[in-house]
């Protein structure tokens, strides 16, 4: 009988610790959203593809390619917040600026929105900045558009992501280079989810 009571009290304490624990959210909780692994893999692939592309090399052989980074277009069913959203484009830029040889091939400029924000932040007006003819004018745009095919039922959710990147000639509209990253993420509801 004493053993029974001790066992019961021990069980009560164990379950009590589990239940009254302030850290209730399971650290192994999962979503079907893009994560840091996708970010690193995707941007590594894109930067490597741009740096080794023969059409891009033909342009950079003549002179540095001046590229404006456009804001990512989110066509998925996941909320991609700033500044996290911008990382998907800016990490490509950072990788292309990592080595001296690449820095000589690619020059990056701010997009219009980021440029206007910076001016406002620093208290500059456009008239403070000198003649427009002296400003660096981008010739290519690096854009990214993410799509997702989401299927949801009562027990599961799956998101098939297609993340596309493009280097586009701003003057002609021609797509000089295009790359993609695809991944499918699926989660199944657990008991009590």
């Amino acid at each position, binding site marked *: 009988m004493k053993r029974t009571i001790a066992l019961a009290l021990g069980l*009560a304490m164990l379950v009590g610790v*589990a*239940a009254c624990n302030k850290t*209730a959210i399971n650290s192994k909780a*999962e979503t079907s959203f893009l994560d840091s692994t996708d970010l690193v893999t995707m941007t590594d692939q894109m930067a490597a593809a741009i740096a080794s592309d023969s059409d891009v090399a033909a342009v950079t052989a003549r002179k540095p390619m001046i590229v404006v980074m456009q804001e990512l277009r989110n066509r998925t069913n996941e*909320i991609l917040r700033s500044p996290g959203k911008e990382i998907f484009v800016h990490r490509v830029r950072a990788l292309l600026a990592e080595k001296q040889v690449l820095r000589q091939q690619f020059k990056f400029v701010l997009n219009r929105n980021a440029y206007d924000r910076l001016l406002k932040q620093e208290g500059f007006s456009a008239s403070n900045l000198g003649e427009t003819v002296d400003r660096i004018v981008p010739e290519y745009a690096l854009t990214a558009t993410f799509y997702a095919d*989401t299927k949801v039922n009562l027990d599961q959710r799956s998101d098939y992501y297609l993340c596309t990147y493009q280097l586009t000639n701003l003057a002609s509209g021609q797509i000089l280079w295009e790359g993609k990253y695809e991944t499918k993420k699926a989660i199944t509801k657990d008991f009590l989810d």
Partner: protein
Amino acid sequence: MNKSTSSWLHAALCTTVVAVMFGLLGGCQSTPKDIQIAVDLYKAGNYHQSMLRLQPKAVEKSEDFVLNNCRLGSSAIAAGQLDVAENAFMEAYTIMNSVKVNDGGRKMASTLLMENFKVWKGEPFERAMAHYYLGILNLKKGDYENARAAFQNSLFKLRDYAEEEKADKKAEGDKYKEFESNFSLGYLGMGYCYIKTNEPDLAEAQFKRALELDPNLSGIIKRLKDKRTNAILFVDFGVGPEKAGKGWYNEESVYGPTPGEAGPVPQIQVGVNGKPATDPTMSYSTTDTYAMAQDKKWMDIDTIRKTKAAIGTGAMAVGTGVAAYGIQSGDSNVALAGLGIALVGAAISASSQADIRYWETLPRAVYMVPLSLPPGAHNVDIIVGIGTQTIKVDVAPQGDSIIYTRKLQ
């Protein structure tokens, strides 16, 4: 006493001790006092103070993490603290869209003892409302892509039990059908986002679905498509449904009041700078949370708790019968065994209590009022319920202005 009787008594004692312990520990699961104060402040219209009280609670990763962030989001958006609101609802959004949220210990405690040990993720209608707020917050930033994603996530499939299958004695497990969501506010939000991203065909598909659900939305849709519309006023009105336990052991949960008890959602009138800006023949109401709370499609299932209540009741009945037989036949071992079974049954039944946590700061109704206003400052009068609420609105020279306000009564 023979071995089997002893075993039953030991089992009964174990279960009873555990159940009593957690009855006593039930205090750690009741609404904390400071949360209740925060909710009371909200309901008194003191949104900023409510937000300040909720902020430290919303960072604790407890079983109420999502619920506290929803409460915080409500307070912050009503107080005009949009960054705080967005952060809070994003925390809630991440967990709501996650699986394996409860670890093994939580699952065991929720199943064996009290369901409210599990991490609260809300009923489906509460999750839909959380995504609606994320939609508005992104609309206010002009981020139509993220707003569309938020509204899309509010439109997940619902379940409903097929009535004929409930009565089917051969049915095994839970039988249900999947339904497309009838959250018309989600379809309206998506339609509006597609208009702003120049995708009229996709917008039309969303508006068509909204109209199928509620033909009274035709006026709102017409104005959303009107190029002169440059402002949308969202009004959260009234107090949402309350949740309570039901059944002999409170194994079911029930929301109230019903729309029948509360009366219909009142009409809204809006005036701008003293002149009427709404059409009295048009409906601007998109959502009635009282109706959603009564619709089984918007509820999670009670099967676990009902099953436990049934098992417990059955065990008590069997145990009582066995004990009575033992007494009648003079067999003390049988009588004690029956007592043990009855105690086990009582403990199981007592642990089948429903989780009655709910999001107290939801509105009853959400109104969506498209407006066409010249750029600059305006006084906007909102007339619904008791009295008039006047807010000052600044309409931007370009783009659409999204205005949110909360009217409690």
